[in-house]
């Protein structure tokens, strides 16, 4: 489903991704962890081209894009890739001038040209799926952080993407609200959604991931099943980062 080869990304003179290789099969969950500044969010944002890589290649679903030699995909290819991915943001980024259901309807109506009735009924189903029946007409500021993020998940699902991208979806939440969002994500994973998740939730990584990738300084330090990466890291820097995390949890 996803195949990334030798991906590079720089911001000015700062090289954030230094040649990343990654692959993910359909229906699997990939969790990316690592210290801040390690490039994990940039890697995720390269997968729907919110950041344009400087070199390397990206295959995702039917999209097959190469960035070598300063090449950039055309507008159509960019839109196609983005329609095939759904993204959930750390700060939700819901549209504040639209109600919960309108947030979920928006891309169906504007991008997929579905009728409003069709979009509305599908959106109501999606809101029910994330446990927000009855909140259809609430504006984002009337919802808790956890509820907003669940609307964000429903919105990203609305266009039937093949891959869901989560950028630290629970980092902005109060601790007591983290569970409700993780529950929805686990449910999605159980239904066979292909997911890439950048997170600091080690418990989620251990329970829901098929593969865990540990990034550091723009490269992948460790990659493998959660038990292996989280418990027996072979790389020194990886072990150090994991120690820091477990100390914090104590």
């Amino acid at each position, binding site marked *: 489903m996803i195949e990334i080869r030798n991906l590079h990304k720089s911001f000015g003179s700062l090289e954030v991704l230094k040649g990343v290789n990654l692959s993910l099969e359909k229906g699997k969950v990939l969790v990316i962890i690592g210290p801040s500044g390690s490039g994990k969010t940039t890697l995720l944002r390269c997968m*729907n081209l*919110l950041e344009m890589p400087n070199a390397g290649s990206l295959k995702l679903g039917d999209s097959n894009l190469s960035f070598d030699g300063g090449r950039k995909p055309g*507008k159509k290819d960019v*839109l196609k890739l*983005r*329609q095939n*991915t*759904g*993204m959930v*943001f750390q*700060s939700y*980024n*819901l*549209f*504040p*001038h*639209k109600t919960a259901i309108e947030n979920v309807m*928006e*891309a169906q109506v*504007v*991008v997929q040209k579905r009728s409003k009735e069709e979009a509305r009924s599908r959106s109501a189903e999606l809101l029910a799926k994330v446990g927000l029946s009855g909140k259809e007409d609430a*504006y*984002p*500021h009337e919802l808790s952080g956890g509820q907003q993020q669940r609307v964000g998940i429903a*919105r*990203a699902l*609305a*266009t039937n993407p093949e891959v869901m991208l989560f950028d630290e979806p629970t980092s902005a939440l109060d601790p007591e609200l983290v569970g409700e969002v993780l529950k929805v994500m686990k449910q999605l994973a159980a239904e066979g959604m292909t997911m890439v998740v950048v997170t600091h939730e080690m418990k989620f990584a251990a329970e829901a991931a098929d593969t865990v990738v540990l990034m550091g300084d723009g490269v992948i330090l460790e990659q493998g099943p959660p038990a292996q990466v989280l418990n027996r890291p072979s790389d020194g820097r990886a072990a150090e980062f994991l120690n820091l995390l477990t100390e914090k949890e104590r």
Partner: protein
Amino acid sequence: MDDRKIQILIDSLWPMIKAGLQFTIPLTLIAFALGLVLAIVVALVRLWKIPVLSQIAGIYVWIIRGTPLLVQLFIIFYGLPTIGIKFDPFMAAIIGFTLNMGAYNSEIVRAAIQSISKGQWEAAYSLGMTRGEALRRIVLPQATRVSVPPLSNSFISLVKDTSLAYTITVVEMFQVSKQVSAVTYEPLLIYCEVAVLYLVLCTVLNALQNVMEKRLARFSTR
């Protein structure tokens, strides 16, 4: 106040209101609407740094903001005919005020669009929207809310600035009051009367602004 003065006030009221309805209000509405469209185009061209157009837009805003409105009106109405470009007075006023509104309001629109967080654009893009769709559906509706107070301000300024159109022979409200004052020799009375008319007009607009702000406040922008 004697009966003669009261009679003058009453007699001059309708001609002034008529001039307001015929020229002041249409001039304000048309110039503001066209100016707003121009302002949005100029703001986007500059925000998106579209080559050549963005430089032209920058020079346009620089010239209009750096020269007096009165001089601009004179160049359009009295100056351009000498090189064969002629407009009737009302048309010249529309052009002058539109250009003026376009320049000032483009800065308001630009600031309003920039005040919308990058995350809103990214959320729209992540759903597969084009830049135009993201602008129209997501960013402009939110920017509108931010820009209502400053745009109302410039609208109300425009109402009063249209009185300058009398200098290029448009028979708007102030021009009529000048004529009445010349005939009746009651400048204090007549100019106060026209001032009250402007005040009433602006008060109504102020009330409309409040209604709009309340309607747009249904959502909050975090």
